[in-house]
């Protein structure tokens, strides 16, 4: 069983016990434990179930690469699924649970899949569930979704805070092992600003476990002193619990810091996402040990040799009492030696290499450990926990030579440099046959904006495993990096070290070499996703020869650990099956993030009211106080209507429309886009921007204009006013101001840069109030306007006035069909003017109205609305706006596009009015059907509804729509099926429902 060994464990403080929960059980650990080490100390080896076969799974690793140890953490809305037990620091009161099992961890019904494994081969989703088609949706998928899958997310709102943080440094160093620390010292001594990040809470990395001699002293002392020295330098920042998750174009780096996860009830933000610009990046991200592929290598108790050593040395936890070590390299001998020195039993070291290990083998032998060279594990025995192994020759098919009883297996298949960050932004890899691993190709590094290397690798991430090489290369690389920055130093000399020489690793991708299919079908490559050697072989056999295809077919490396343990082993099996060498098969693409980060950290502060800015008009608070039901329009909030006491929204809109049609209404139209176009070529420029002529517009006059894209599609509309000889004020839609302003700038800067024109978006500089209805003129006269009679201010004209000493501009334009004035006033006087108008409320029966009444009234008049009648595929001709397309002008944006054949196709759907025969409101977005079916058996559609309202004026449903040959079919009836399988009949009518001759607006 796994247990705590008193007197061991450099990181735990046995005088500080902590209590935590796992699956409802109260357990005890120590300060300094990880959740993983504390569970192991409590003999909780079984930690989860595998994804597909629900096989019992124990911890395999001790760090971020752990594939099995996924748990749920916390409670209620702070619950976090899929957290790694190995990277979760223990604290008093921690609550955790296992996942992916039903009904319990110990007894899981899904384990039946294990016996069905021959029915669930690679690609089984694609193969098995294809026929019959409906069965997938209704039978297979719901069952699979329930039985497969990881932890469940919470449903409530995340109560924690998250933040983003920006850092600009000379050198970013990722990884706080000895190479990262030493690199930081060299860089810092040169005067560079250094940021060093380390994913764990502790600096020192693997060396602090293996404890090689350095400068004739212990490495632990060297690490402590170096850390202290670095912390004392004000050009150095060190951040623990911070993982480098990605490197992007031009060396932009992301790091993820966990601020409060390691204790209960810590204040402040929970996670911080660092966005880092470093002039140079050095990754010292270490290496990850690989599993060996032998039968039943997934039984709880089989663990990476380095993890066994780590749990023992750092946490004083033994995985078993009798541990068999199996390896193809020298490093695993350290595990055997550590275990033996701690008083534990190591019955055997199995070394696949016929010639075995170097100096470390001698040390092991001297301790009395039996070593068998050229041997292998044929199969592991045990179901929920290792009971023993069968020994066999590495050469051959696995004939059992000897049964050895044990309760743990420490395996080592060699080390893979962590090259993720190097690869994220384009660094290339070389296969190193000597090391049996991919390592960075230093000739093809990731490059920055200047085309030169922006990222370098040091330490075991570079494939250097011996301490002498690690520090020497770190020194050389860091000196080269700071030289790029124009810096140098001789104040960080290379420490003296003497590493233990090791024999080279041998490539062992299968154990034994000739393992039978029976053994291989129990040999796991990807523990989390349940991918076995036979699955990858099958993929190759079925033609999935590309590594990217084989990955997706088998799901190898697609779990939350992203194949940190499994990728190289799987790749080797694939290349073997294809009879190719590993480099020619290549690796799958490394993509950020290196390890999972919280969604909260990505969102950062951008949640709720901070998600996006809200634009408010100067009258916003007034609207809010007077019952405004808000409608978002772009980033603006506009009153949809003002709901009075005892009134429904529908009734409010009804009341507002009726008031405008019979008395007078006022609208806050401040959001309307306003772009000032000035300069001697303004007219010429606007003639290109608008489809109609603007240059001949008279001073004091307004004209409705259309703007198309170069593709010919209608994108915006609005009224243009000629202000003076060289100035025009262009009104745009509320949502379109920024786009149209940007479009104008683009054409001026990139095409017609010889035009003398200046455009300014003055939308927010002016408030605009629309006064609408029969009494409108009287209201303005009362305010003191003197030039607004129909002679001095005819329809589509404007005048300057003074109201209570404030300069205003009055435009006589109408979007409602009523007598209508739009009063423009500097924004700081917007609320003042609004209040002055509303003070006349009683006298004239003034009713404030919102956007819905505006929309209803414009629809009654058949005026189009950008975004309703247009959708990016509609041209002005479709809307009967041919009159606004200048024939006199040689060119305008969209003119050439309108000459394309399809634009004059008579079958294009065209604007009409629609009236349901029963007076009801036709459903929004409804499509009209014609006779016959299309090539996929759907009913032919002949038109659609673009706007549909109940008209309080006409007391019936009215709609605008686009219908094939619509204008030629006035009086015909067409059918609109609804979502409830009924059909609404509608008559095609003129789109102008109300006051077609315009008497009301021209008074």
């Amino acid at each position: 069983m796994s247990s705590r060994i008193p007197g061991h464990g450099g990181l735990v403080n046995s005088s500080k016990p902590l209590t935590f929960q796992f699956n409802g059980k109260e357990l005890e650990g120590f300060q300094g434990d990880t959740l993983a080490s504390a569970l192991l100390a409590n003999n909780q080896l079984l930690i989860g179930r595998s994804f597909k076969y629900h096989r019992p799974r124990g911890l395999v690793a001790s760090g971020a690469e752990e594939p099995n140890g996924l748990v749920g953490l916390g409670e209620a809305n702070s619950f976090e699924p899929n957290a790694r037990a190995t990277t979760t620091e223990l604290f008093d009161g921690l609550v955790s649970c296992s996942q992916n099992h039903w009904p319990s961890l110990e007894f899981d019904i899904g384990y039946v899949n294990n016996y069905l494994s021959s029915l669930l081969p690679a690609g089984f989703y694609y193969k098995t569930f294809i026929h019959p088609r409906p069965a997938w949706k209704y039978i297979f998928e719901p069952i699979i979704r329930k039985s497969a899958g990881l932890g469940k997310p919470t449903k409530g709102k995340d109560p924690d805070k998250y933040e983003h943080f920006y850092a600009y440094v000379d050198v970013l160093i990722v990884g706080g092992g000895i190479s990262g620390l030493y690199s930081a010292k060299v860089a810092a001594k040169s005067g560079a600003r250094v940021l060093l990040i380390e994913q764990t809470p502790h600096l020192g990395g693997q060396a602090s476990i293996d404890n090689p001699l350095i400068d004739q002293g212990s490495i632990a002392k060297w690490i402590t002193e170096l850390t202290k020295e670095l912390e004392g330098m004000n050009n150095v920042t060190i951040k623990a619990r911070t993982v480098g998750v990605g490197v992007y174009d031009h060396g932009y780096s992301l790091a993820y810091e966990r601020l409060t996860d390691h204790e209960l009830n810590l204040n402040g933000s929970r996670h911080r996402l660092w966005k880092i610009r470093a002039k140079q990046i050095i990754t010292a991200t270490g290496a990850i040990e690989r599993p060996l592929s032998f039968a039943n290598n997934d039984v709880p108790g089989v663990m990476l040799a380095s993890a066994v050593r780590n749990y023992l040395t750092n946490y004083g936890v033994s995985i078993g009492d009798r541990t068999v070590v199996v390896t193809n390299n020298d490093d695993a001998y350290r595990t055997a030696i550590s275990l033996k020195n701690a008083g534990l039993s190591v019955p055997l070291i199995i070394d696949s290499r016929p010639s075995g290990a170097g100096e470390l083998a001698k040390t092991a032998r001297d301790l009395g450990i039996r070593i068998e060279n050229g041997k292998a594990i044929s199969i592991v025995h045990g179901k929920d926990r290792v009971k023993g192994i069968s020994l066999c020759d590495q050469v051959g098919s696995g004939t059992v030579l000897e049964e050895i009883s044990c309760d743990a297996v420490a395996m080592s298949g060699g080390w893979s440099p962590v090259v993720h960050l190097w690869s994220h932004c384009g660094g290339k890899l070389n296969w190193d046959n000597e090391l049996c691993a991919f390592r960075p190709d230093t000739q093809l590094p990731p490059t920055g904006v200047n085309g030169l290397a922006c990222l370098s690798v040091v330490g075991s991430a570079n494939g250097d495993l011996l301490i002498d090489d690690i520090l020497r290369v770190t020194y050389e690389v860091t000196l080269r990096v700071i030289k790029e920055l124009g810096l140098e130093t001789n104040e960080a000399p290379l420490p003296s070290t003497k590493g233990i020489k090791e024999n080279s690793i041998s490539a062992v991708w299968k154990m034994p070499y000739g393992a039978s299919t029976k053994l291989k079908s129990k040999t796991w490559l990807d523990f989390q996703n349940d991918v076995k050697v036979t699955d990858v072989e099958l993929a190759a056999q079925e033609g999935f020869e590309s590594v990217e295809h084989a990955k997706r077919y088998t799901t190898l490396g697609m779990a939350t650990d992203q194949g940190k343990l499994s990728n190289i082993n799987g790749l080797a099996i694939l290349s073997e099956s294809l009879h190719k060498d590993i480099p020619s098969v290549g690796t799958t693409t490394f993509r950020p993030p290196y390890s999972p980060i919280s969604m909260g950290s990505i969102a950062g502060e951008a949640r709720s009211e901070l998600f996006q800015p809200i634009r408010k008009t100067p009258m916003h608070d007034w609207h809010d106080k007077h019952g405004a039901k808000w409608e978002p329009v772009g980033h603006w909030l506009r009153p949809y209507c003002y709901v009075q006491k005892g009134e429904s929204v529908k009734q409010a809109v009804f009341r507002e429309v009726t008031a405008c049609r019979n008395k007078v209404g006022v609208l806050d139209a401040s959001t309307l886009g306003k772009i000032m176009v000035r300069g001697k070529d303004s007219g010429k420029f606007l003639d290109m921007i608008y489809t109609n002529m603007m240059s001949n517009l008279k001073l004091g006059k307004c004209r409705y204009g259309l703007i198309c894209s170069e593709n010919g599609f209608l994108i915006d509309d609005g009224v243009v006013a000629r202000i003076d000889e060289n100035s025009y004020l262009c009104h745009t839609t509320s949502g379109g101001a920024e786009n149209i302003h940007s479009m104008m700038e683009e054409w001026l800067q990139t095409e017609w840069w010889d035009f003398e024109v200046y455009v300014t978006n003055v939308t927010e500089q002016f408030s605009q109030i629309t006064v609408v209805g029969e009494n409108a003129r009287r209201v303005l006269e009362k305010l003191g306007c003197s030039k607004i009679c129909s002679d001095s201010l005819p329809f589509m004209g404007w005048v300057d006035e003074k109201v209570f000493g404030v300069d205003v501009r009055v435009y006589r334009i109408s979007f409602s069909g009523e007598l209508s004035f739009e009063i423009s006033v500097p924004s700081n006087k917007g609320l003042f003017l609004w209040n002055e108008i509303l003070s006349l409320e009683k006298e004239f029966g003034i009713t404030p109205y919102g956007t819905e009444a505006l929309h209803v009234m414009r629809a009654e008049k058949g005026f189009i609305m950008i975004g309703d009648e247009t959708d990016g595929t509609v041209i002005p001709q479709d809307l009967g706006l041919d009159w606004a397309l200048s024939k006199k002008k040689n060119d305008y944006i969209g003119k050439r596009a309108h000459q394309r054949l399809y634009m004059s196709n008579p079958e294009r759907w065209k604007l009409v009015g629609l009236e349901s025969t029963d007076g009801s409101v036709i459903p929004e977005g409804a499509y009209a059907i014609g006779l016959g079916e299309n090539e996929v058996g759907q009913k032919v559609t002949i038109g659609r509804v673009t706007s549909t309202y109940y008209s309080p004026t006409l007391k019936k449903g009215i709609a605008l729509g686009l219908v094939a040959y619509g204008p030629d079919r006035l009086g015909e009836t067409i059918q609109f099926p609804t979502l409830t399988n009924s059909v609404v009949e509608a008559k095609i009518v003129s789109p102008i429902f109300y006051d077609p001759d315009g008497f009301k607006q021209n008074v």
Partner: protein
Amino acid sequence: MLLLNCPYCNLSCEETEFQAGGQAHLKRQSVGSSDQEFESYLFARKNPKGVHFERWQHVNGCGKWFHIARSTVTLEIFGSYSAQTLSPPKQIRVNINKKLPEWRWESSK
């Protein structure tokens, strides 16, 4: 996240300050152009493995449009220059040829 140099601000800024505007040095086709010329102007874009000329706007900065020459392979940026020109200036071409001696400017017709 590219680092772009706005030639108007003369500042190196993050890509998020900018808006990409696609291929540079297109010749506008309008009334009088053939269907094929117009189609090509609207839709056909180069997708080179190598040097690409691009339009960018410093939209969250000074608002100016400019051009850059960029390697689509290494992401190296050979320089940025005014959008108010019909072909890349000499200095940009020299910068490119320093790294890619074989490269020659070909204007789009």
